[in-house]
């Protein structure tokens, strides 16, 4: 083996989560009511194209969650049977795919698609200070820069053509498989419309991908940051962090919220009092302060136990997980209150009273009769919280209580780039890249969440 697989805790949880979602989807297919509701989501064009964009982000995030440590070259004098040694750094499959971007770093800032560095330097062969050429950006052009713009245009059109070709291939293959005419599928209002927005959204994604690959081969598409790292690479790496925080936090929050909310609403009495006291106390503390206090505490614990973690990646990962845990512990109160109120209403309905009259146990009633009737609230809370959490990560990292500074995330990108607008000339590209990627992710999540809410909320279907 030329590498050693590393499974970080967050990777494992992410894959468990994906498996759970697939399992739930298979289960939901057999439930008529759920299939009808998801059918409404599928018929919503906006939702399907948002889902496509989200899926693209998830693919990047998953590629970035398969970690390994590369095997080091055997030392020349080492005996043949010596145990293999592995690199200290943990890389992901995404890192391997983007090895070019990751390794071709410059000295410092450079603008998108630039051929020269951002700041002047004293060059060896000239008396004046000049903008030095980049080591990698536009290096293939040689000394003659007159073809710079032409080269970019060629690469963009080549990328477009490539993306278009792949899209056409995919569309043709799909139509062949299903036995549908291509024109028929792309028509407005055709029978199986669920696929049409997906196909149409796939086109710009593939075009952008084609352009990025073709331009990225010779330039830094989004420029480089202060230490010369490629901004496109950083943006792509940030996706995983955002996805993790958005999903794992709800994973922590939901069991707590569901259990306590239903217990408080159904059992009542002192149980209700204790649970209400708990969530009123927690929610009366200003959110950021509670999170800050908890994060600082955890930071001290991590700092005082360096022996727990084999690599720095594991330490950063532990901090990321702890942040999700803390966010989850502080954000369950809202959903719990909602579920308690709904349970109070359900408890008085006939079907619950009938179950009580039949002598069904308390916990059986909660599980069989109350919980299924609350699932739409849980689902809506889950999708609605996602985008808020992605945005919150950036703010928390700015306050200094977010992810580990060595973890690449939108928050850390913005935090390191925010003073750069004051430079002359302005360094805008890393901020712009971080904000646009975040905007695309959050917008897609919001649109999808809206469609899910419309489909599942009984009130909105009226």
């Amino acid at each position: 083996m030329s590498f050693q697989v590393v499974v970080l805790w967050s990777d494992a949880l992410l894959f468990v989560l994906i498996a759970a979602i697939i399992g739930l989807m298979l289960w939901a297919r057999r439930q008529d009511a759920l299939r009808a509701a998801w059918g409404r989501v599928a018929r919503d064009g906006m939702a399907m194209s948002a889902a496509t964009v989200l899926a693209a982000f998830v693919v990047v995030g998953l590629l970035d969650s398969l970690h390994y440590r590369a095997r080091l070259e055997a030392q020349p004098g080492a005996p043949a049977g010596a145990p293999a040694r592995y690199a200290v750094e943990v890389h992901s499959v995404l890192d391997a795919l983007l090895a070019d971007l990751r390794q071709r770093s410059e000295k410092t800032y450079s603008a998108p698609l630039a051929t020269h560095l951002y700041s002047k330097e004293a060059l060896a062969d000239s008396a004046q200070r000049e903008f030095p050429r980049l080591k990698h950006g536009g290096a293939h052009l040689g000394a003659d820069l007159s073809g710079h713009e032409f080269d970019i245009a060629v690469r963009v059109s080549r990328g477009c053509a490539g993306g278009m070709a792949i899209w056409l291939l995919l569309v043709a293959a799909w139509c062949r498989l299903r036995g549908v005419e291509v024109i028929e599928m792309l028509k407005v209002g055709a029978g199986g419309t669920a696929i049409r927005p997906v196909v149409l959204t796939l086109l710009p994604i593939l075009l952008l991908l084609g352009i990025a690959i073709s331009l990225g081969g010779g330039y830094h598409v989004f420029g480089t940051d202060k230490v010369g790292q490629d901004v496109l690479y950083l943006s792509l790496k940030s996706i995983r962090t955002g996805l993790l925080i958005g999903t794992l936090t709800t994973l922590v929050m939901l069991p707590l919220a569901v259990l306590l909310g239903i217990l408080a609403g159904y059992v009542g009495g002192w149980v209700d009092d204790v649970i209400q006291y708990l969530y009123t106390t927690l929610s009366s503390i200003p959110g950021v302060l509670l999170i800050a206090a908890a994060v600082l505490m955890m930071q001290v614990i991590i700092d005082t136990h360096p022996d727990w973690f084999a690599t720095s990646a594991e330490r950063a990962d532990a901090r990321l997980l702890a942040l999700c845990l803390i966010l989850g512990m502080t954000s369950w109160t809202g959903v719990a209150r909602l579920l308690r109120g709904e349970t109070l209403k359900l408890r008085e309905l006939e079907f619950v009273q009938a179950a009580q009259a039949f002598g069904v146990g308390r916990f059986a009633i909660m599980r069989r009769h109350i919980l299924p009737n609350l699932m739409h609230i849980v689902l809506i809370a889950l999708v609605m919280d996602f985008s808020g959490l992605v945005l919150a990560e950036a703010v928390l990292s700015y306050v200094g209580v977010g992810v580990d500074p060595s973890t690449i995330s939108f928050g850390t990108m913005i935090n390191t780039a925010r003073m750069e607008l004051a430079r002359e000339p302005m360094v805008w590209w890393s901020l712009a890249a971080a904000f646009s990627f975040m905007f695309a992710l959050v917008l897609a999540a919001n649109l999808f969440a809206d469609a899910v809410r419309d489909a599942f909320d009984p009130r909105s279907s009226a």
Partner: protein
Amino acid sequence: MLAYIIRRLLYAIPILVGVNLLTFGLFFVVNTPDDMARMQLGVKRVTPEAIEKWKAERGYDKPLVWNAAAAGSAALTDTIFFSKSVRMFAGDFGRADDGRDIAREIGTRMGPSLAIAVPTFVLGLFVAISFALLLVFFRATTLDFAGVVLCVAMMSISGLFYIIGGQWLVSKVWHLAPISGYSGGLDAAKFLILPVIIGVIGGIGASTRWYRTIFLEEITRDYVRTARAKGLPERVVLFRHVLRNAMIPILTGVVVVIPTLFMGSLLTESFFGIPGLGSYTIDAINAQDFAVVRSMVFIGSVLYIVGLLLTDISYTIADPRVRLQ
């Protein structure tokens, strides 16, 4: 109603004790008073005597929550937790680690915080409700659809972007307002205008959409149909009937926020260099000044509880049928 208010205020006491215990626990699980002393004294001056002196001066030389050496009720009272927490109920927040009086600091910093938070809140509320009514007036048209899409797009943009982008555009490119800073008196207006506008714009997407849903829910009711059947113009239906009847859900979300306006906004204040309570809190978090963080948490909780109470009282004003008991 008075009995109700008193009962709610009494109910707040266990919550505040819980809040204090929680912050206390979070902090002292990992920090000992010795650690605090070491951090404050700096590396050079740390001697066992200096640490003991620092702790004794600030009352950190007692046990944390349980004084086994003391007899009777003193076992509970003669501890760091009790001596530091109980005084807060009387409004005595003690001193920050740098020796300044926290209560006084809060008093002077409250002004700038309110100067930003109140205009942002009032203007934001007005703008969002107006937009929402406009969208409802044009419901199920292209304008409504475009408005909702715009709202979703606006709420998908990071709050940091509004601040950074606004500072760059208005202050650096257009030179319309100073980029950051603060001064007292009427001069403050020119420093306040940018953060207030950015605050309003940043919040508009989410709140407009929220109010729109509330109004749309209200507009399907029977009384609205009756009002239209009477021949009232849509404008009157919206302002007279729908807006008033939507007050309860609006108040639920809005009134609870009012008292917490005192706390200021962490992000806005630290970006615009405004010496308010929000930036005070951030500085305290970064300096790990427990006394300040604890005081801010305490005040925040008190204000939140007051907000909940005010919400209940405001219901009785908005809807005379509501009785508190």
